């Protein structure tokens, strides 16, 4: 079996990128995983259809926190309609690991939160 805790996951867990908060962010979105108590909060600033800036706060297992850190690097400057197309396969590729049905929930939590954030931004945009 390939070890779950690759160098890259441990690196992001030990030195998370984009960790912190954005004051007066356009969108603040929180999600959690009741299975293990993983928590992720994303702070998102948008420029039309792209994510201009992203930061996150959270607590939980190394997989969920590393996934949040890696995802934050990937999505900065990206088009929101491309981000919502990301799925499980892309996350596993990003983490260099394939996970079982229980553990995959930890890896997918940041993506789920991020998508919720984007959807609420889109919703807001059409309302105003």
């Amino acid at each position, binding site marked *: 079996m390939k070890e779950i805790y690759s160098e890259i996951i*441990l690196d992001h867990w030990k030195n998370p990128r984009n960790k912190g908060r954005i004051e007066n962010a356009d969108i603040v979105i929180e999600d959690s995983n009741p299975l293990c108590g993983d928590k992720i909060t994303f702070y998102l600033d948008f420029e039309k259809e792209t994510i201009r800036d992203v930061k996150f706060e959270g607590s939980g297992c190394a997989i969920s926190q590393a996934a949040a850190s890696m995802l934050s690097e990937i999505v900065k400057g990206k088009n929101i309609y491309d981000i919502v197309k990301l799925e499980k396969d892309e996350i596993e590729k990003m983490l260099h690991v394939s996970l079982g049905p229980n553990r995959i929930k930890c890896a997918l939590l940041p993506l789920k939160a991020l998508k919720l954030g984007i959807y609420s931004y889109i919703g807001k945009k059409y309302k105003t």
Partner: protein
Amino acid sequence: MRLEKYRKDFPILKIKINGKRLVYLDSAATSQKPKQVIEAITDYYQNYNANIHRSIHSLGEEATKAYEEARETVAKFINAEKPEEVIFVRNTTEALNVAAFGLRKIVSTGKILLSEMEHHSNLIPWQQLAKINNAKLDFVGFDQDGYLKIEELKQKARNAKVIAITQASNVLGTINPIKEIAEIASDAIIVVDGAQSVPHMPVDVQELDIDILAFSAHKMLGPTGIGVLYAREELLKKMEPFIFGSEMIKEVSFNNASWNDLPYKFEAGTPHIAGAVGFKAAIDYLQKIGMKNIRRHDQEITDYALKKLSKLVNIIGPKKAKDRSGLIAFTMNDVHPHDIAAILNEDGIAIRSGHHCAMPLHTKIGINASARASFYLYNTKQEIDLLVKSLEKVKRVFEK
């Protein structure tokens, strides 16, 4: 270890996980099964499978006899006065639901007293009952070392109609003084969650002087899908059934029905016959070893593990093995329990991680989750050494 010879009866203990021999330290979630139990279930399906209580043919008679013998075995195992006081249900959770809703009219608006160390299954049914009945729900706390606050219980028990409490906490490991509690609150209905105690120590309902006891077969070498609600006969007679349908009735018209005698009033539909057969085999197996011996073994392993682990992890609950059941929950500073469990799994070691269905307890002690190693009669001190070695690896991997 005296019980080591029994390991050979458990086929699963020979398998390998990630190339390493399985070290199964998750018996508090579910125990492994000896071949005697597996064979008893196969024997039932191959040789006398039939529905019970209604078929007149030979197989029906044989299956009915086996099912009722299982009930008698359970009754003797917990020293119930009569087999009719043993109701077969799916598991501890279902037993506690049947108890809570069965007591709905008896409890009425009276106070329900729980402890702060309850598993969700001994919390939510009472929460719901309190809401339906508009009754008060109250809680007894535990101290820094994980012991129940008995003085607080004495105060709060005074006007309690029901006290529902675990005999052994599935997170703290604490064994609660049930007999003392039953003495303190002699007017209240005492409901005991025995999920973590009945598999691991002698439990005698008459000696403890309790009214209701709930436990599951799968945590005591038996199959999943069958558990027990024990209640005193006079209480069962007053309790309302929770599940309606066939088998639980006496007379039925289009608009009305009267309830069957005990225990059938609470056992609607075709029950888990194979489960009962396997459950009996499990109890026979446990009794052959002796519950006192199993308790002694658990305590020895726990004592050994407490000593070895205390230098490495933060242990939750009492420091003394004699006050604990055979499980140890712990944390490792900022390493998440899921990461601990994942690293251990690489070495073939199975532990539990999460909130163990006790969210309020974890919130109370200020953590989100914990890791838990739990032991049973087949575990050895060598396995604890392997656990320690693997935990040292966890420390190295996640060193910042």
